[in-house]
């Protein structure tokens, strides 16, 4: 899609006038409801250096005491199921994933696409160490509980993508266009998937039962229950999947994969309350099973392997039923 064409199409599709009086309504609201300013606590300049040092000393003592208390608490709460050390904090995990994702995104400069390969080898060469580091980060044993399932899925996606990067380099070196396309189709799946999931991880927070149940119900209704794209993919015959290097089937596959990825993301973003943790774990695990099938299907799509695609669809539809069943246990 040409740059200028995209500008034009975006404006055609989205240009709407601002609702009449919208700004005035905002102005009225702002005038009616003064807000309390939020500012990060600032040091009071009237403090002397001595009192500042004294306060700093007290703060350090307090931090050391709190750290010691936390260490004792964690030690006391550790049971045989938990990993050897304390779990990583949720914030630290979110930061790690966010940084790894940003690093991975920055390796892409293109041009690299189906049929366009001039930038592929350089992109893949940059991506390999970055993806390896990301996988290493995800392989730590102290993943916070709420991210354990998605963490395992992410590792699988990134591993598949990493292997495909090497395939891209080899295919480009051999000047093998179709093989480069196949490897690219596999490689880009990892980035598409993480592009969907990572924002949910970063925004993750535990919610109450009502909110969680509503989110699950919404996902079932909007994505999984209808599974319109699954049906489309089921109806895709060998001809439609093998035409034009598998691209039409690839797009249908993307729709299906996206639906499942959004569902998994929602469960992480709106983390279940403790009272629903067991049911949430079942749902997440079944979604992860579906995701594993999608990973295999992606290879089948890249290789125009219709039998592999059909086998995947059968497994996916079975898992979809299980997912709907799991969700019904939550939503009642």
């Amino acid at each position, binding site marked *: *899609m040409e740059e200028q064409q*995209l*500008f034009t*199409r*975006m*404006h*055609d*599709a*989205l240009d*709407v*006038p*601002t*609702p009449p009086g*919208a*700004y005035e*309504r*905002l*102005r009225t*609201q*702002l*005038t*009616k*409801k*003064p*807000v*309390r*300013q*939020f*500012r*990060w606590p600032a040091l009071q300049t009237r403090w002397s250096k001595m009192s500042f040092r004294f306060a700093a000393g007290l703060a350090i003592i307090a931090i050391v005491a709190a750290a010691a208390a936390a260490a004792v608490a964690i030690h006391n709460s550790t049971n045989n199921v938990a990993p050897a050390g304390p779990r990583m904090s949720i914030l630290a995990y979110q930061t790690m994933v966010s940084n790894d994702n*940003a690093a991975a*995104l*920055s390796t*892409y*400069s*293109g041009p690299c*696409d189906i049929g366009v390969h001039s930038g592929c080898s350089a992109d893949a060469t940059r991506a390999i160490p970055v993806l390896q580091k990301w996988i290493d980060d995800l392989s730590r044993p102290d993943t916070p509980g709420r991210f354990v399932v998605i963490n395992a899925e992410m590792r699988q996606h990134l591993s598949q993508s990493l292997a495909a990067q090497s395939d891209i380099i080899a295919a480009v070196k051999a000047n093998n266009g179709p093989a480069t396309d196949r490897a690219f189709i596999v490689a*880009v799946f990892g*980035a*598409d998937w993480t*592009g*969907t999931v990572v*924002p949910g991880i970063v*925004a993750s927070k535990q919610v109450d039962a009502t909110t969680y149940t509503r989110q699950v119900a*919404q*996902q079932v209704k*909007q994505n999984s229950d*209808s599974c319109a794209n699954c049906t489309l993919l089921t109806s895709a015959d060998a001809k439609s999947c093998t035409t034009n290097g598998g*691209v*039409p089937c*690839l*797009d*249908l596959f*993307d*729709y299906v994969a*996206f639906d499942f990825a*959004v569902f998994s*993301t*929602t469960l992480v*973003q709106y983390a279940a309350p403790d009272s629903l943790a067991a049911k949430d774990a079942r749902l997440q695990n079944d979604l992860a099973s579906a995701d594993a099938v999608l990973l295999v299907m992606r290879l089948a799509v890249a290789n125009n392997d219709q039998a592999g695609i059909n086998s995947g669809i059968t497994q996916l539809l079975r898992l979809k039923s299980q997912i709907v069943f799991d969700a019904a246990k939550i939503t009642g």
Partner: protein
Amino acid sequence: MHGSLFSNTEAELIQAALRGDGSAFAELLRPHYQSAFRVAYGLLHDSTEAEDAVQEAAFKAWRQLGNLREGSSLRPWFLAIVANQCRGTSQSKWWSVAKGHFADGETESVDIAAAVDLRRALLRLSHDERLIVVLRYYLDMPFEEIGTTLGITPKAARNRVERAVHRLRPIVQIQGAAV
């Protein structure tokens, strides 16, 4: 230009807003209201929701105004708050677009099918991808300002735009083929 440095008037309005003057803060937002609405509409595809999101974001921005560093540009800072406000309410709404909801005031001359296709395609993107496409192609932002809004370098902004367009392309193509 979007005012990379505070003018005297803007600085005075900020001081007044910090003292709790709502009309001063409203004046500060006036030149950026349309951009803010467009970001929200580009992300949510619903005029009413977009207006609500901008209003909520305005109150958040007012509360956090003291954290805006002197010399920083107000527009990208405010647009980032608007975008965050829209996060979470914008997922998985493409079915409603598929049913053919059109905004008030949409003209007959627009290719409705193409417009719906693009909106559907946009809603298939993640929030961050959609945001970057909206900033680039709907607000016509240069990469430098996109970078400032998202807290990333212009190069990273360019990479992300390319990445999002790459994701958008096949979706638009297949939807176009289906029409």
